[in-house]
């Protein structure tokens, strides 16, 4: 019995007999890995095709800006209506709209003449998606003509005929608000005002009313507004494909996206991808880039597409989850993948394409924010800059074991 207890004790103690921590063993010239598992490679693959596509209308419902003007065939106009009025017992002496200027870009134009109409038909906030609102031509004369200094960022006070306002107060059914449009002879300027979505520069309607004893000002900042962007659909204009075969565009307001096709079969199947960097040369001959628009872009993956890109499907993960998109920005005259996105671009997309786990037809480039205002970014395409075509730099570990 005693001997068995001794035996058990010895075995148990010996089982607890452990060891020290595993120390890092620095390599030396005598014991290194000598590329035992593979070697690190940086490779560049070039686009085999590129193009741009003018897309559907943008939904400007949530934009913080209202744009008006004309430039190179692009027309911007906006609608606005207020939803609250003074009590019907109060008489209305005057009324005016306050609009705050938030931005502009122009070609040495000092002033923009606005024509303001009473809107004759109903509209919703997604008015830019309504085909009938494009190249809308009111049948009545403008109720106000107003000239704006393009650089003026103060509040603009635009007087409205009180009878118009009283008519809206009497019958909400005829309250379709006002339509702002640039005069016919306008070209080379886009003026931007704050919209009701803006936190600080939103429009206001001020009513001046008299009572028996005093004059009252009531300010209303509740309403609906939206911008309408027009672009000629006959192939003419700044985005004409035939005259821009060597160029690529990305635009907001008028949706334009660029597409790049790469042959990822050039990357070996044994590649363990670390990072991927897309580089596209920018074209500085461009005065359509809005200085108030952030020059940040997304790259997304197109999983299916028709031959002419008239229909295409973007990987839904990019549209559902904004943080999965790959950020790009301009750096030293090139569009470049942001440092924060290089690893995920490589590991979460290109690696899966190389593995054959996902299908990729094109890479698709857009402004991050493309529904707010008008801005165009121009790039050099495959045909334009043959020595520096659009390219992808792939950093990977080529596994040889």
């Amino acid at each position, binding site marked *: 019995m005693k001997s068995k207890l001794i035996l058990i004790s010895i075995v148990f103690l010996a089982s607890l007999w*452990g060891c020290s921590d595993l120390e890092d063993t620095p390599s*030396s*010239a005598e014991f290194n890995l000598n590329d035992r598992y593979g070697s690190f490679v*940086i490779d560049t693959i070039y686009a085999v095709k590129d193009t741009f596509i003018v897309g559907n209308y943008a939904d400007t419902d949530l934009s913080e800006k209202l744009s008006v003007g004309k430039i190179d065939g692009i027309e911007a106009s906006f609608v606005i209506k207020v939803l609250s009025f003074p009590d019907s017992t109060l008489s209305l002496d005057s009324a005016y709209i306050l609009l705050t200027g938030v931005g502009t870009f122009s070609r040495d134009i000092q002033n923009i003449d606005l024509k303001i109409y009473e809107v004759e038909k109903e509209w919703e906030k997604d008015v830019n998606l309504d085909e009938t609102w494009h190249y809308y031509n009111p049948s009545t004369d403008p109720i106000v003509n107003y000239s704006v200094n393009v650089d003026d960022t103060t509040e603009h006070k635009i007087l409205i005929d009180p009878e118009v306002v009283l008519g809206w107060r009497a019958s909400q059914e005829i309250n379709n608000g006002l339509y702002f449009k640039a005069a016919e002879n306008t070209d080379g300027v886009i003026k931007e005002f704050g919209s009701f979505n803006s936190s600080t520069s939103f429009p206001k309607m001020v009513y001046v009313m008299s009572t028996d004893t005093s004059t009252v000002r009531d300010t209303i900042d509740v309403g609906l507004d939206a911008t309408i962007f027009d672009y000629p659909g006959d192939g003419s204009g700044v985005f004409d494909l035939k005259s821009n075969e060597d160029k690529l565009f990305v635009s907001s307001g008028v949706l334009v996206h660029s597409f790049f096709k790469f042959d990822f079969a050039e990357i070996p199947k044994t590649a363990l991808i670390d990072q991927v960097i897309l580089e596209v040369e920018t074209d500085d001959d461009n005065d359509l880039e809005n200085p108030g628009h952030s020059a940040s872009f997304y790259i997304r993956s197109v999983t299916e597409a028709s031959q002419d890109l008239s229909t295409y499907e973007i990987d839904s993960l990019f549209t559902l989850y904004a943080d999965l998109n790959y950020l790009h920005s301009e750096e030293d005259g090139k569009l470049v993948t942001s440092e924060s996105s290089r690893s995920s671009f490589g590991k979460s997309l290109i690696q899966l394409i190389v593995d054959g786990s996902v299908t990729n037809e094109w890479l698709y480039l857009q402004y991050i924010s493309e529904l707010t205002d008008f801005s165009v970014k121009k790039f050099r395409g495959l045909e334009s800059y043959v020595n520096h075509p659009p390219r992808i730099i792939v950093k990977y570990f080529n596994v040889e*074991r």
Partner: protein
Amino acid sequence: MKRNILISLLLLLNMSYAGESMFGLVDNGVGFLKTINSAAGQGRSYEMAVNDSVQLNYRNYANWTSIPNTSFTIKFGYDAIFSDDLTNDYYGDAGNFQGGYLAIPILQRKLILGGGIQPISKVEQRIVDETSYDFGSTTVIKENLLMDGGLDRALLNLSYRFNMLSFSLGWEYTFGNITESLVLDIEDETTSQLYLNYDNLYSGHGMVINAFSDNIDNLNLGVTIRPAVDLDLETKGDSNSEIIDKTRKSTVTLPAEYNFGIEYQFSNRLAAGMDVMYQDWKNGYKIDGNKVENYEKYYKIGVGIERKSSEKRFISLGQQIDYRMGLYLSQLNITKNDEPVMEYGLSLGFSLPIQRFRSKIDFSGIVGKRGSLSTNGLEETFVSFGISVSASEKWFVKLDK
């Protein structure tokens, strides 16, 4: 109940911790080859031709026919390794379970059924290697490799004694897992990381044939032949690439092993012996039928003496102890810097009875050196300790009431 607790403890014991020999880091290898003796055999540097009625022989299962009762032997070992290359010193240590066997006499001293498990190779080391690449700007890759694992051999054996000659035939199942975990720290304009993990799963059946003779006066002979073994190797990857992760299958051939031993007994209390082991890893170690580079013919020659305890009943403790000493010389199965690696050591050991003629505990120690700075660029000085616990019990014996 206590018996069951003991058996359970034994089965839980396969702990192994950090710091095996750096010579186990050889490419395409199964780790550092371990030719494990019991602590008694380790103390005297020979074991093949030893006849022991209490402790089960770790090298020659044919002389299990010496045991009168159910017997088990279990061994634990500890190694401290001081490594030195041309630039740095390293230290590592490891405590391991080093095998255990259980033998049951079907016919006392005639037919013995037994089995057990024993590690045959081990690797547990980390290397950090740094490489700089010039791709216009400098990219530094730090490779962190952890190799961990080894092979074990499970045995089911039948031993039979014909007068003065014993034979045994054993079925062996070789199995194991060697993990290679590689983490790449990549530093260029950004810092990123890649990981690559391989699990190498080995399995295969083999056999072992042993013979033992104490036919000649005072002279024992022992022979063990282990034919070449084909192991199935399944390599499972874990990385960011589905292609690299695909399971790959191959066949690994371990070369045949030949052992010979001799012991001469000068008297009841003094014996000397020698073991010789040979295994042609240079030509016999293959992967998918192809020889592997950087392997060499393995041999080990051990000589030693033993001062055995007295068999008299009423004696002092000192006369109950076995004393052992030995020397060995070995050529390892790998090359380093294209040169063979030699190992030699001095061994000492003793045993203490727990219950005379029934159970005992053996202690052993080795101090040795392997490799050479001038030829191999790496040398290791090591100290190893072993403890074996052996017991002979009347288990599985039907006792008359």
